[in-house]
């Protein structure tokens, strides 16, 4: 227990952040803002990993390393997604998902 903050408080914060990300993913129609919602979701999961590591298994480092790997995967995902978004913009001159409805063939 870290200076009298129960573990549940951290979990409440990360839960709210996760579902706010889902709300953004459902309502947004712009590819970049949808990507930002995904980043929110990944970030809240990271908080969960780290908090579980610190409170429940303080003698190990599994959550810590797992969040480092999640951050690396998020960076990869952002790079590839932004490449795809720029390519879509070049072809359709918009990044609104409802206007991008045709594939190559």
């Amino acid at each position, binding site marked *: *227990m*870290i*200076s*009298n*903050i129960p*573990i*549940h*408080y951290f979990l*409440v*914060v990360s*839960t*709210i*952040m996760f*579902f*706010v*990300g*889902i*709300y*953004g993913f*459902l*309502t*947004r*129609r*712009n590819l*970049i*803002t949808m990507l*930002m*919602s995904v*980043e*929110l979701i990944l*970030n809240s999961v*990271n*908080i969960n990993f*780290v908090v579980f590591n*610190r*409170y*429940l*298994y*303080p*003698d190990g*480092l599994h959550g810590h*390393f797992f*969040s480092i*790997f999640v*951050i*690396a*995967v*998020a*960076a*990869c995902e*952002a*790079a*590839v997604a*932004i*490449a795809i*978004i*720029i*390519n879509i913009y*070049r072809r359709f001159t918009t*990044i609104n998902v409802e206007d991008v409805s045709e594939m190559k063939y």
Partner: protein
Amino acid sequence: MEFTGTQLMFIIFSAIIVIFSILTVTSRRILRAAIYLLFVLISTAGIYFMLNYQFLAAVQLGLYAGGIIVLIIFSILLTSHISQKFEKVEWKKSVFSAIAVIAGIIVTLTAVLNYQFEANNAITQEVDMNLIGTKLLSYDRGGYVLPFEVISILLLASMIGAIVIAKKGKKV
């Protein structure tokens, strides 16, 4: 009710996280949404500092706040006009999404708050750079060399993939 310094810090960080993540998904100007996301990520790094994971907080600041946000802002500048505002979300869609999300929050929070987590009183392991480096490259029990190598291949693949996707192809 008296708060200690750490509790006060936690309250500030969590308030920033909640408020700015809501603003991130509701703001109608895309550049502002990106900056709000930056605030959320920075206060997450603050929470990592509070939990005494300095290296993870540094990674969070450098990679997320420094790297991904800059990438997102660049792509915003390439793909949209700064002054452009999104049109309002249809009320039907936003109401139904909000109902689904609030139901999800309620279900998850009742599950979480009713669970008795067993606090572990084992000796806290100090996280220093030496230990992190050794663990990342050790193949003994509790070593992480396999995910480390897999991540390096993933990084290489995504780097090549990003270049191939974004480079100008022949006109179609």
